[in-house]
């Protein structure tokens, strides 16, 4: 049986990397199409995601799906090996709750704290640390948010495991420290050490250079498409 699976993504986007990670965890073959999201979005991307014109887009047998968390749920329902969501409806609800918390509150707060001008920094950092503290509690001493194996929440938290540290290095401001958030800090290590995860992360040097350029260029506030 031949299935056509394509992913439209951007090398530095945590959102498109989430989709790639989920497919790899489930052993799904896919064709990857790199989009130039800053300067030159392809006609195909605009055709498959006319509403948002963003990556990632998953194309399965010709049918497009956009929005990384929506795509992750679709992947889970379509390819049953190595589940990323728990069986139990309550545990599943909790996973969805935390994934939503990450996207609605955590990531925006972390992003803001990373790039705030001096006069807004203190408040932004405070909000970001509140989020990290909540996540620390949610992890509750487990190896992964998903328990023994990587799950939906771990995948959704990929930004924290990889991008955040690089942004910290580029800006010189630390948010996620081992002292303040020991479990979460340890989790970042556990997560990026998984071989499948490692394969699906953008190269550190390239990302660092990208963020340093950004600071040098003093660009406007980023949107989701530019992440």
């Amino acid at each position, binding site marked *: 049986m031949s299935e056509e699976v394509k992913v439209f993504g951007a090398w530095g986007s945590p959102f498109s990397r989430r989709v790639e990670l989920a497919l790899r965890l489930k052993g799904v073959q896919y064709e990857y199409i790199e989009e130039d999201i800053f300067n030159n979005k392809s006609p195909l991307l605009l055709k498959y995601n006319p509403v948002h014109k963003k990556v990632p887009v998953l194309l399965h047998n010709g049918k497009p799906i956009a929005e990384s968390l929506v795509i992750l*749920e679709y992947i889970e329902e379509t390819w049953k090996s190595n589940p990323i969501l728990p069986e139990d409806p*309550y545990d599943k609800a909790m996973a969805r709750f935390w994934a939503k918390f990450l996207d609605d509150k955590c990531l925006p707060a972390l992003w803001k704290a990373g790039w705030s001008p001096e006069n807004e920094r203190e408040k932004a950092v405070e909000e970001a640390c509140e989020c990290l503290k909540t996540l620390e509690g949610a992890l509750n001493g487990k190896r992964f948010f998903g328990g023994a194996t990587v799950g939906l929440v771990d995948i959704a938290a990929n930004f924290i495991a990889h991008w955040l540290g690089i942004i910290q290095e580029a800006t010189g401001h630390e948010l996620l420290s081992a002292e303040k958030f020991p479990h979460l800090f340890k989790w970042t290590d556990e997560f990026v050490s998984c071989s499948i995860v490692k394969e699906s992360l953008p190269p550190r040097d390239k990302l660092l250079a990208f963020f340093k350029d950004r600071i040098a260029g003093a660009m406007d506030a980023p949107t989701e498409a530019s992440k």
Partner: protein
Amino acid sequence: MAAKEEVKLLGFWVSPFVLRVEWALKIKGVKYEYIEEDIFNKSTLLTELNPVHKKVPVLVHDGKAIGESFVILEYVDETWKQNPLLPQDPYQRAMARFWAKFAEEKIFEGAWTALCSQGEQKQKALQQTREAMEKIEEQLQGKQQFFGGESIGYLDIILGWISHYLTVWEEVGSMEIIDPAKFPATMAWINRFLKHPVIQGTLPPREKMLVYFHQRSKELGSTSHGWLRV
């Protein structure tokens, strides 16, 4: 299923998010105890059951608490299998989830921002909301009854607030979001939704809502944009 199941719903009389959960439970015929919360004077129960957000709705089922209306809806659908809310087909489910997220981010947020702001910010929010509503109008073209088909489904529930809250907000905010002449499919859907037996009798009284939102929009308009969406 267990002989006796305890289902409780912590809510607030005018919260559109709470209404979603009520609609879902009623569609499935699930009995629940409703507990009214004063969100301006939160009980210890609420802060204990939803420590992360301290918000309603919170569904408590057999002692376990779940927050966030989107998350609760999926839980309800998976736990009580009768009258399914989401489609069976994974692609159709993805489409329902996609549009639900879109509507929440562009229409709900847009309308709320327009309600609580003035001048350029208000105009910009109105523009965003109208453009987003046009996409929903497109989605409704040719739909027989509801987004869910013959019966009310997940997306109808997520968007249902429009049928009752939008005209209230339009009046309070002195603005027009939906010109009925330009949104025939949406108007038809609204009418069908409001006539549905499950929906009737659940809606908060319009007069009370006008007073409430008038007060809230003044309070929120005078401070920086807060997280409280009611």
